[in-house]
């Protein structure tokens, strides 16, 4: 009985994973577009780093600066991909009008969002490593001191938090078919800006620094830089790891809860219907 239930759960989670995979396969042209866009964005940031000495006239370790910027770029390629994939899974369903069929099926929302999240992580990692590999060829990034185990841990913990954020953002297209996807993109842009993607958070105005202290992006970006640039050990990164664990523990159930509130709201107001 338990095995049968487990098998059913596995098939249900795979439904979302394989659907996302099919969607990417059927929209392969767009995947290429996004990949090229990510790559050009990362390279532009790299060239900005290389050009900083020429722009400012100040002598500095350009390679170190490029690595600092590029880590921000790679991390954001990954984290935004996770965030957007989780949240846009609902947007797709709104566009296509399939949301009623998905919500009518006897599948728990946790399994639904878990299936989407696993795809989001794998898809995000592929995009990030493609961009990382191609950038490495051009910029000759110095990762000789990098602690990849610690970096992997930071990435894993950050993924959990961003999945939670994605779940919460997914509620936006759910409750507002017209505005939801736009609001999701604005949310992503705000998180990127306050989390110190290309700069230390300390450069932000004080009030923004307070906001940054609750963003998982802040700990993920800085923790990753210290792991890859300085080779910081896991214990040295504890001030980044603990906040990520705490934020992840809070955000996953919170994201699930917020989503269930959104689903309930839609069922009360009739917003699951395609035309709203």
């Amino acid at each position, binding site marked *: 009985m338990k095995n049968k239930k487990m*098998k*059913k*759960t596995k*098939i*249900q989670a*795979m*439904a979302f994973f*394989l*659907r996302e995979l*099919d*969607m990417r396969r*059927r*929209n392969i042209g767009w995947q290429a577009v996004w990949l090229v866009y990510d790559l050009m964005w990362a390279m532009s940031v790299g060239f900005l780093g290389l050009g900083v000495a020429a722009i400012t006239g100040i002598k500095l370790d350009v390679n170190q600066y490029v690595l600092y910027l590029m880590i921000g770029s790679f991390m954001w390629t990954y984290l935004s991909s996770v965030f957007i994939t989780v949240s846009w899974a609902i947007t*797709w369903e709104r566009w*296509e*009008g*399939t949301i*009623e*069929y*998905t*919500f*009518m*099926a*006897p*599948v*728990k929302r946790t399994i639904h969002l878990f299936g989407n999240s696993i795809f989001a992580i794998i898809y995000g990692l592929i995009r990030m490593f493609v961009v990382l590999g191609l950038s490495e060829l051009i910029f000759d990034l110095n990762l000789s001191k990098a602690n990849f185990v610690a970096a992997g841990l930071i990435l894993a913990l950050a993924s959990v938090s961003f999945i939670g954020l994605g779940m919460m953002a997914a509620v936006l297209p759910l409750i507002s078919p*017209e*505005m939801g996807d736009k609001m999701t993109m604005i949310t992503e842009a705000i998180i990127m800006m306050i989390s110190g993607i290309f700069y230390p958070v300390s450069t932000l105005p004080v009030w923004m620094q307070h906001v940054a202290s609750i963003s998982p992006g802040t700990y993920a970006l800085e923790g990753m830089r210290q792991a890859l640039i300085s080779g910081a050990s896991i214990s040295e990164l504890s001030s980044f790891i603990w906040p990520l664990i705490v934020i992840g523990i809070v955000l996953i159930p919170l994201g699930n809860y917020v989503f269930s509130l959104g689903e*309930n709201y839609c*069922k*009360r*107001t*009739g917003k*699951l*219907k*395609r035309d*709203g």
Partner: protein
Amino acid sequence: MTKEIIVHNVTKGFVDRQAGLPNWLKLKKRTKFYAVKNTSFSIDKGEIFGILGPNGCGKSTLIRMMSTLLLPDKGTIKVAGFNMIKEPEKIKELINRVSVEASFFKRLSAKENLLYASRLYGIEDKNAIAKFTSILSELGFEKKKINDPMEKFSRGMQQKVAIARGFITDPKIIMLDEPTTGLDPKSKLEVQRFIRRVYQETKITIVISSHDMSEVEKLCDRIAIMDKGNIIAIGTAQELKDLVASENTFELETSNNSKAIKILDLNNSRIETKDGNNKLESKSSGIIFQTNDVDNEIVKITTKLKENNIKFRHLKKVVPTLEDVFLKLTGKSLEDEDEE
């Protein structure tokens, strides 16, 4: 007979919103309209139950509530003994639905869409493929198109895939919300034949909403007539017709109905054309009249027609249709679009 679905005093209203603007920017006062009003009825296990009514009368809202997709404002719905608000997960295991909008991931193929739908219910791919291949073949869907994207399909083909999606999970209760709307006559027949066949083999409970009277009459054991959010009559097709049937209403057809209606004096009986507008003229349709003494009337009629060189074609007793029932009960035709 076990009650499979019990709808008790259910009301559902929606707030009319202006699209495209956030609520705080909307100048128009928001108004609430009620799609379903204080409605009660029950559906027996193993019954094909029809909900007949014009567009906008609340049929789809009712079906959405029974399918756990909408929460009622008031009242209770029980499906297979489970409370729709408290135990929706139990209901979801038993039901499926085919809606008038064949919603799919348009870039994905029929096969990919159907596999996604079946996986949601925990069905293994090999079982799902066998099942939907058989359903689609019965519905006349071309097998070679199974891997084509849905966006390339006609409305009829999309609806056939939608019907396969509804039945692939072997539901105990299926809600068919206008399943044949927009289909060509051949596809319509194929779908109706399929529904009949599945019902005969499985005796599952089927709820069909439609504004197609003949479809509802052909398929359903009992029919609820719905108008403006209310169920105004419920019963078998014959029971509903009996509500408006008159023992002494006849239809007369002649070679020149327009002329005949002018010369006939049907013993002060009410004479009207078939469209019921009480016009003293007739087009190609017959002349409707009422009389308690049909034998004498026939003699008078045939004599007068002969005197005026009009040929008698036939006289028959009028059997009301569901359209007549709807017209009588609501004062309007089923084809009338309801603004709601």
